[in-house]
């Protein structure tokens, strides 16, 4: 099958899961960020728990098409902080604003339009930011496997179990 069709079908499933799981809910996102309703963080921990195990099992057979992002420390920290503000203010992330807009939520549509504008602003600022934050302290596309010198699967198994344990047994909702 053609990769465009595969991308479309995977995207359809991704969009459906985000909608059905309540990831497009402002109440659920802010509930997690206010540390009251753990639904979204438990969903993410479970996804990462299953995903890390799945990917490193694939990797055992050389079947994983991984895509590791470079660790340019300052850019990742600054970008993560700016992203975190946008996340708490809008109640959406780039994926959920697309799905929220598809539900007909106007606040999600405004987030999506803002996101297109933000990406454009970044393209204008790119030359400056590139030399300021992206080039220095770039450790490259490293994983814990590279850093620790341990086979990924031996890291993925305990990591996955720890995240699933956290999601299923430790985190509890807290209402005031």
């Amino acid at each position, binding site marked *: 099958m053609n990769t465009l069709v595969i*991308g479309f079908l995977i*995207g359809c499933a991704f969009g459906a899961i985000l909608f059905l799981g309540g990831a497009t809910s402002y109440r659920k996102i802010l509930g997690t960020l206010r540390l009251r309703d753990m639904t979204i963080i438990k969903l993410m921990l479970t996804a*990462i728990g299953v995903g890390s195990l799945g990917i490193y099992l*694939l990797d055992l057979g050389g079947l994983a098409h991984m895509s590791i992002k470079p660790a340019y420390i300052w850019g990742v920290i600054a970008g993560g902080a700016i992203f975190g503000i946008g996340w*708490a203010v809008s109640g959406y*992330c780039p994926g959920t604003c697309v799905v929220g807009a598809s539900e007909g939520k106007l606040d999600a549509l*405004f987030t999506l339009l803002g996101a297109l504008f933000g990406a454009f602003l970044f393209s204008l600022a790119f030359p400056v930011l590139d030399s300021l934050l992206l080039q220095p302290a770039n450790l490259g596309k490293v994983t814990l496997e590279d850093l620790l010198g341990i086979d990924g699967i031996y890291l993925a198994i305990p990591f996955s179990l720890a995240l699933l344990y956290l999601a299923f047994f430790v985190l509890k909702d807290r209402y005031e």
Partner: protein
Amino acid sequence: MSDEPIISWKVAGVALGLLLTLATFLVSPLGVSTQFVVTDAMVTHQIAPQFAEANAYLAKYGEKENWGIGYGWMLVFGMLVGGGVTAALLRSRQPEQDQGSMPPMWQARFGPSRMKRFTAAFAGGALLLFGARLAGGCTSGHMISGISQLALSSFIFGVTTFAVAILVARFLYRKNASSEVVS
């Protein structure tokens, strides 16, 4: 009607983890934020081609011969279709509080002004993508896909993002602030 999402976090989380594994097997992991740049590049190449070509970041995508519509763009387009169709079919089962453009939690704190909510949404969206492009990814590419691949950069992104978002949410919903609302 239940207050909880249509499927539980357990089902959604396992499904998302399996979908990520499938995507990594077939083509590559999940990611969203790059496609906002691709879309910007398509538009600017149509409106102002010289400007687009002079911009080091936009020049990478959206040329006439190669619009940049690949696996990643189709994935985001699929989210729009898959999310929209599922929502149209199952809207009646979505918790009432999660429907509509004005979240009740927001209204209880910031009042009923649609202008205020949509301005915040737009500004928040701009920060999201500026931050995501600076960091190299977003919730799906960095947090879900990146941490699953045990990438160092994604752990840094995840920790920073959550820490800042929790602090900002705490500030926005600080205790003595609810009396400020004029509605």
